[in-house]
């Protein structure tokens, strides 16, 4: 990888966009060269398994015997005969609504705070990222359970009783584990902030714009592609939340199914109960739901996400 360049680059606002680019055919060929690893991976390692799972979703497949075609039975069973399925949908939606804004909000605030610091930035950045290094391992799950148990640290400090062992509270303990590990979106925000050219702020200062004004008219629009990225990805990941709940509840989604998130139940159906056909159907319903939510996000993005490469219209 090249790490330095002397290519002269001028400030973005200084140039006008030239007319239509020529040489489409040649560029198209170049595009496919750049895309070739992705195309190969997408076809063999992604598209093919996805097609198989779509097929399996219309079958009764127990992992050991050949799949048996059952048409839409898995889907109808899911929607009409499985109260636990709907419990898992409810838990997942609650989780998404709690965890995504909280995690992104904290990550953004911390990233902005870090950027405005002159000293100790490296230290703080590392320290705030530290929890995210752990993932949702077995050991962190045990720590979490100890902290949020009755008689644990949180109970002692706040007098709330145990969280992980009460149905109304356990979901918050799991959500907090995710929020606590806000390092990934924070780092992405930081990287995005780094990309904002400083001369924009300098110019604004010269014009006498207040800090708040600068934040609204420079930081927010320039950071909007990254904010959008974090929003989309964290939403997708929150819908698929698995590991924290699996670890904290020992794989059961308890107490009383309160943390039985969608993918946890999917895993339970597919690998514990050996109903891989049913699990595949669940997966495809989730794909459609997430797809719809993402499509809405993309649509709204046109009104608030600003791409420098598309000019400032």
């Amino acid at each position, binding site marked *: 990888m090249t790490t330095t360049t002397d290519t002269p680059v001028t400030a973005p606002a200084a140039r006008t966009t030239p007319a239509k680019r020529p040489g489409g055919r040649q560029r198209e060929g170049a595009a496919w060269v750049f895309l070739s690893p992705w195309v190969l991976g997408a076809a063999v390692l992604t598209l093919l398994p996805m097609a198989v799972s779509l097929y399996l979703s219309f079958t009764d497949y127990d992992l050991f015997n050949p799949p048996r075609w059952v048409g839409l039975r898995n889907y109808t069973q899911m929607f009409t005969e499985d109260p636990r399925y709907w419990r898992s949908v409810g838990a997942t939606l609650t989780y998404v609504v709690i965890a995504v804004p909280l995690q992104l909000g904290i990550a953004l605030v911390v990233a902005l705070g870090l950027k405005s610091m002159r000293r100790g930035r490296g230290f703080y950045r590392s320290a705030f990222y530290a929890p995210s290094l752990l993932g949702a391992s077995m050991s962190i799950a045990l720590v979490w359970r100890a902290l949020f148990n009755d008689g644990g640290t949180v109970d002692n400090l706040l007098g709330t009783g145990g969280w992980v062992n009460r149905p109304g509270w356990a979901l918050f303990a799991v959500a907090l584990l995710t929020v606590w590990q806000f390092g990934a979106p924070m780092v992405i925000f930081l990287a995005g902030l780094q990309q904002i050219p400083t001369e924009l702020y300098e110019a604004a200062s010269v014009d006498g714009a207040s800090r708040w004004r600068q934040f609204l008219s420079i930081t927010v629009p320039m950071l909007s592609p990254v904010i959008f990225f974090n929003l989309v990805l964290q939403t997708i990941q929150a*819908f698929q939340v698995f590991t924290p709940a699996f670890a904290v509840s020992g794989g059961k989604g308890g107490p009383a199914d309160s943390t039985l998130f969608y993918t946890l139940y999917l895993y339970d159906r597919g690998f514990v109960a050996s109903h891989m056909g049913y699990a595949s159907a669940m997966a495809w319903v989730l794909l459609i739901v997430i797809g719809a939510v993402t499509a809405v996000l993309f649509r709204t993005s046109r009104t608030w996400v600003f791409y420098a490469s598309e000019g400032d219209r």
Partner: protein
Amino acid sequence: MTTSTTPTGPSAATDTSAATAAVRKPVARRRVALHLGALAALLVMLYPLAWLLATSLKPADEVIASLDLLPGSLEWSNYSTALDGVNDVSVWRLLSNSLLIAGGAVVGNVLSCSLAAYAFARLRFRFRGPLFAFMIATIMLPHHAVLIPQYIIFNQLGMVNTYWPLILPKFLATEAFFVFLIVQFMRGLPRELEEAARIDGCGPFRSFFLVILPLTRPALITTAIFTFIWTWNDFFTQLIYLFSPEKFTLTLALRSFVDASSTSAFGPMFAMSVIALLPIVLFFLAFQRFLVEGMANSGIKG
């Protein structure tokens, strides 16, 4: 608890380089407040990590039952047990296996994802919209649903019990997360960059390597950091594809201290998780600097 994404108070002070000499005093006070706030937040945030460290030194009967932070007595043998490794495979072997996989994954992801991202972000080709949508869709299907088909494929390719299933997908840009990440950063770069490069006689390849890649360095560093950490911690894939203990990783060995059907060893497991944490801490410390420096040297200041 606030759910607002609007930064308030000191955080809004994003200006670092403008001349602010005129308001030095309030700024100094603001900085002190900022540091105090950050330290207080860290105290809360790092408490569970302190707990993890302390637990790795607790004797067996305290690991779960005791709700005190500090161990009653120090049990260093947790570490010596963990350092013995598992089943004749030394901890150093496990460590180097983990490093090999994570290192390979980093190289693969940075290379392949930036290539694909460049095409999606800055080149025009047929079906770009649908293909991009498809790429985003691939992260929407829970991976448990494609696990078995993928296993069958790798088995047919004769790659089970090798590191290929863990590394090869990274060279084929299968992690749409990173492609999308880099796409977003590349779209943030002004179109004029390539125009300028083209006038200087650069084709798409040279302008990719010479102009675009250096400017997306924060995103590439981010990709490298996340890939390393996430691959390191990815228990599941390693479990499924690795068979021989001498090919095991630290993360896999970590789990083998806990077996519900026989006696578990939680103490050594905590010790092992601290040991397994060290390399990724070092990796993060080494690379996080570039997140900042990346931009300062890149020459976009003009």
